[in-house]
């Protein structure tokens, strides 16, 4: 859309990452997804009279791990507070969260934008409990409440308003998504709501220092929607201002079906949350010793791994980026290099090429790949030792994918072994030359292009199994 003036956009994201614990943050109920309604809501999750919360150590460990990965200050003492409001999916009438003293303080994340990098500030990350779900399919005009999700541990990660476009917001969100999965603190499953995003969006005339009035957009749960919702909101705000209106500070809900945001008046009317320290919980102490223990468990982080892949394996930017985009992919790649002892570039190309294409087509990811690295290594070894050509290898891969067999079994079964017997190749070449004297004449008169014709004929005759280098060499000799 054309605007009468230049506008700047200011965006901050609040990401809720569900921590991958077995049990809930304050109770011993399971966190598994997809159970029958209310079968994983125990007395504590239901907020029965008299019950009390006890904090899950793993949730704290995961939060600290995350804090270390973004080089944040870890609070030696952090405090849980109650956020008071009434909602049917909030069993106690308050959410246990952190307010004044969050476990993770200021940190940062580098994102890649337009070929360069940009540092995005992270204000804080705090632990809190998730609420339940309202199911809107009608029960005689009523809603049903499922509290299985109530009490699931969340890490709310709040960015500084450092993002300047929807594209940057998506890059930041992807980076964070990659990081939490690397750390193993969140499964990142966006369909199941394990990684959710709210965005604070405002616009201001180009060059103005002060921020405009911000609007919070809730419930944007895919990378695609984040970009669309933010861009939509930016347009809405600019249009509003350019038509003489004013942006109201409010919460809006993104509706992916209609690609629009609409005001959530219900959330607006009384947002005096009356935070105060939860008297049922004591301050959480994170000692230097505890931090040291966690530090020792920290995996290699994506940026470090990418640099190492480039240096150690000689990968180009693109392959290094793709192969470090998840820990599973990176681990697969390193296992493949080790098992095949092939050149790492060959390994990388096969992974980012055929393997990932096949996975995409089958809607699978590397962790559920039917092609284990050992089998793929078997195939690469046969390319490397010239048992098969690269072209035949694609055919072998396809058959391996379908059958689950090893490369060697497929090659033997289908008789695809490359022919390196010079006698056999020579006989075929002689036959082809004898049958195509016209072309021989042309070649000898300087028409080099005809050489390709001969290669093609020979390979066709040999069903592609001839070693191309050998064919080339011998043809050249014979045609001279």
């Amino acid at each position, binding site marked *: 859309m054309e605007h009468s003036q230049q506008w700047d956009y200011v965006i901050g994201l609040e990401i809720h990452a569900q921590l991958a614990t077995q049990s809930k943050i304050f109770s011993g109920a399971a966190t598994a997804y997809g159970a029958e309604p209310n079968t994983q809501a125990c*007395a504590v999750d*239901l*907020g*029965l*009279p*008299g*019950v*009390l*919360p*006890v*904090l899950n150590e793993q949730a704290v460990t995961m939060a600290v791990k995350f804090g270390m990965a973004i080089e944040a200050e870890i609070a030696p003492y952090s405090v849980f507070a*109650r956020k*008071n409001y*009434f*909602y*049917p999916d909030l*069993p*106690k*009438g*308050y959410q246990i969260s952190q307010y004044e003293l969050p476990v993770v303080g200021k940190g940062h994340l580098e994102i890649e934008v337009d070929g360069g990098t940009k540092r995005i500030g992270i204000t804080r990350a705090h632990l809190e409990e998730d609420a339940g779900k309202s199911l809107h399919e009608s029960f005689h005009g009523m809603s049903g*409440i499922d509290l299985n999700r109530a009490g699931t541990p969340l890490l709310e990660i709040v960015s500084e308003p450092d993002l300047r476009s929807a594209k940057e917001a998506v890059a930041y969100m992807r980076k964070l998504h990659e990081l939490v999965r690397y750390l193993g603190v969140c499964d990142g499953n966006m369909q199941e709501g394990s990684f959710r995003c709210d965005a604070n969006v405002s616009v201001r005339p180009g060059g103005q220092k002060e921020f405009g009035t911000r609007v919070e957009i809730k419930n944007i749960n895919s990378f695609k929607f984040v970009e669309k919702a933010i861009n939509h909101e930016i347009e809405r705000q600019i249009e509003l201002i350019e038509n003489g209106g004013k942006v109201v500070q409010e919460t809006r809900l993104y509706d992916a079906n209609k690609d629009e945001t609409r005001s959530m008046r219900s959330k607006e009317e009384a947002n*005096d949350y*009356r*935070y*105060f320290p939860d*008297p*049922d*919980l*004591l301050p959480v102490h994170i000692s230097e010793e505890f931090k040291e223990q966690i530090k020792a468990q920290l995996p290699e982080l994506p940026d470090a791994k990418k640099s190492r892949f480039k240096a150690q394996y000689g990968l180009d930017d693109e392959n290094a980026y793709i192969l470090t985009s998840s820990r599973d992919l990176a681990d697969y790649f390193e296992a493949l290099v080790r098992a095949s002892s092939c050149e790492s570039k060959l390994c990388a190309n096969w992974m980012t090429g055929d393997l990932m294409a096949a996975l995409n087509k089958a809607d699978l990811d590397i962790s559920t790949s039917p092609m284990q690295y050992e089998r793929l290594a078997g195939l690469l070894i046969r390319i490397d030792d010239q048992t098969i050509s690269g072209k035949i290898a694609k055919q072998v891969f396809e058959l391996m994918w379908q059958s689950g067999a090893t490369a060697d079994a497929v090659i033997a079964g289908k008789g695809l072994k490359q022919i390196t017997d010079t006698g056999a190749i020579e006989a075929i070449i002689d036959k082809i030359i004898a049958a195509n004297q016209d072309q021989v004449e042309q070649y000898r008169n300087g028409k080099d292009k005809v050489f390709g014709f001969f290669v093609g004929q020979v390979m066709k005759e040999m069903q592609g199994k001839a070693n191309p280098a050998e064919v080339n060499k011998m043809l050249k000799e014979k045609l001279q």
Partner: protein
Amino acid sequence: MHNKSIIELAKGLRSKAFSSVELTQSFLNRIKKHEHLNCFITVIADAALESAKQADAGISSGAANLLTGIPLAHKDIFCTQGVLTSCGSKMLANFNAPYNATVVEQLNHAGAVTLGKLNMDEFAMGSSNETSYYGCVKNPWHTSSVPGGSSGGSAVAVAARLTACATGTDTGGSIRQPAAFCGITGLKPTYGRVSRYGMIAYASSLDQGGPMARSAEDAAVLLQAMAGFDSKDSTSVDRPVPDYLSGLSGAIKGLKIGLPKEFFGDGLNNEVASVIDRAVEEFKKLGAVVKDVSMPNLELAIPAYYVIAPAECSSNLSRFDGVRFGHRCENPRDLTDLFTRSRGEGFGKEVKRRILMGTYALSAGYFDAYYIKAQQIRRLISEDFNNVLKEVDCLMGPVAPTTAFGIGEKIGNPIEMYLSDIYTIAINLAGLPAMSVPAGFSDGKPVGLQIIGNYFTEDKLLNIAHQYQSVTDWHQRIPNGFE
């Protein structure tokens, strides 16, 4: 039978002088006979007789401890699985708790026989038992007087010999004040000594369960089973529980008693004051040394308490919304109507008052002036106690400024009612242990002596009270008609 101490009852059960079934039946008969006191909200006669039978079998087979087969009753604030747990409120008048409180589990495990559930101020908010949805309990010493609150049913049941002993809870004096008004022995333990799991929360940072009994000795036996670490309560303290009974034999010669001058100021009734003076004299005879002390911040305990307790309660009681348990209004129009009407109908006036006060104190713009200020004063009060308890072994004073007041006398004036807790509230703010011990009478109504100790000195407090009870008989007096 019903006048015997727990140790005497345990002996009788072992010697087969009587069975637990007989003992239980005799208490059940007395409960029926004295129904007009309105002590019990629920009596579980069949279940009690059944567990008495099991206790008898246990005693015969030699697998028994002191509480095995001893009938007791719980304040209706403790969740009891499958049994109505009303908390004295219409809100929970249909709530059969789906689980047991840790205290209930521990007493069941010890083999005690539960007779039923005891009346109390609604959600433990009150000092007279008049805020109960089930009506006021009558004081057996003077039936037109209140029993005190909030553990009024517990105090009366013990005083009238309707149970051997009872559990209570104390947030601002709710064990000690009714114990004083009814002439029994009550102990509020150190915060964290007794598990709060399954004890319906009023003000989480102040609530503490404890024993209500006829003597320090009985209280020691009961506390032994109630106290201890509970992994389900984050505020429970992991610290060994001493043997309280064996601690009762220590002499108190040389005991240093502090008398805080703030406990003996203007508001104190003269006759109550002289009863306390005489009790202190008795301790001097036992070899104790008395010292005057001062705690200047004590006068702010009431305002600080009436910020902190309502603030916590306003949040703790938000879970009563008509969705998962408790009262739900008829035909709610929408969500707001469901919440507002269910809560409006389910809660009584005093509970509403405190929810409103707490909501106000926590709301934007008032939080610092009220809540933070009160928490700061709480620290000052706590430091006052720490300072004087460095100089003396314990503090003594009255439990309440007067004896039991008349039913209806103060219920219309909340402030006057709040001031009746003036000597007990500060102890909860500091989290210290304190006892109420019968020390005499004024106008035929019992007076309680308060003994306050340092953190986790329940054993010392019980011994101090026991030594006093060895040379006095106030704790053995029985109200007329309840012998």
